[in-house]
């Protein structure tokens, strides 16, 4: 799953969907994930990159990652 091409993001974690006018904010970890999604990394690659950067348990992170992706889907930010 990729981030929709027209989604605008800022380094501060602000996300703007120009198709709907919706805007969101996320924390630095969420922003890291969005950057990786923009780079069209696969989900396993994203999980590995985040776990390695923050030195966190992969099983625990996978659950949070799934929740985060589910939120992005609900907010119509991802190309399904």
């Amino acid at each position: 799953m990729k981030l929709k091409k027209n989604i605008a993001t800022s380094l501060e974690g602000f996300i703007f969907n120009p198709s709907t006018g919706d805007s969101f904010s996320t924390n630095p970890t969420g922003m890291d994930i969005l950057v990786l999604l923009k780079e069209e990394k696969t989900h396993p690659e994203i999980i590995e990159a985040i776990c390695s950067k923050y030195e966190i348990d992969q099983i625990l992170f996978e659950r949070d990652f799934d929740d985060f992706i589910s939120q992005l889907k609900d907010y119509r930010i991802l190309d399904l």
Partner: protein
Amino acid sequence: MAVQTNDMTNSAKRKIVVAVTALNAIDSPGPGVAVIRAIRECADFDVRIIGLSYESLEPGIYMHDIVDKTYQIPYPSSGTDSLMGRLLHIHEKEHIDLIIPNFDAELFSFIKLRDKLKKIGIHTFLPDLAQFEARDKIKLSEFGQKHGLLVPADNIILQVKELENAVDELGFPLVIKGKFYDAVVVNTLEQAKKAFYQIQAKWGLPIIVQEFIKGTEINIAILGDGKGNAISIIPMRKLYITDKGKAWAGITIEDNNFIELAQQFITTTKWRGGCELEVMLTADGKSYILEVNPRFPAWIYLSAAAGQNQPATLVKMALGQHIEPFTDYEVGKIFVRYAWDLITDVAEFQKISGTGEL
């Protein structure tokens, strides 16, 4: 960007006098002040603005950097002869080039007077009577069917007892609407009856009982050239809505579905002038047209801020310029309305109330 193929003047800015109504910049504002602000921002002409008001406390009357001079005009209920008489008097003094009416309720009169005004040198840029009447709230279903546009199901009723049939047909929730303004969402027959009587008392009959469509509210400001071309289309998502359902903040959005919907509307109706489509976008991606407002919306200054100055473009077209359709606008431009206590003096209030001029 718009391409001007017939320059109004080659050297100095053209001096023009534009008369504008709907100076009621209140909590549920008329579009007049926003229209004037956009026109004044256009560098192509040197404009004198004549405000046309109905009541003495319309804020625009006292905004002297917006309106150069205001004249009161008779209410639409006084008839077109009375209005024409007053406009002739104002025209003798001010030499008006163009009138931009911005109230739904007055448009019928101005459309009827269009030819007479043209004869004395006053331009307008309005839909014709058939276009104006076809998009009337009470004919929305017919309008949708005729032009292949998605609109909510409705019942037009004259008596409260007809509500029961409407409820059977459309189910709850429902929207009870007045023929000019006001809309109330109801969930029970009792609420529906109460809304019926309230709206009847204010706006008369008939009452529109409309299917409630759940979704995201999008408004589209459009300028049509009367030949089937949409010169400008600006879709806006409401970000903050007042208890009267008005946008207090909104943002320009980018969605080709809305552009295509607006183009379809203009192509099929050959609309001349400004208008606004009120659209509800459902979760499954359907765009229902809830209303077609036959004039610029109160948020029209956003069109200028986003790069398509619709009021100034209307002025140019009304004065005979050929304008090519705009193609780009800025997405993500936000307006946030605000309230401001304008201070004036009783002498000014007395002047507009007593003499009908300020």
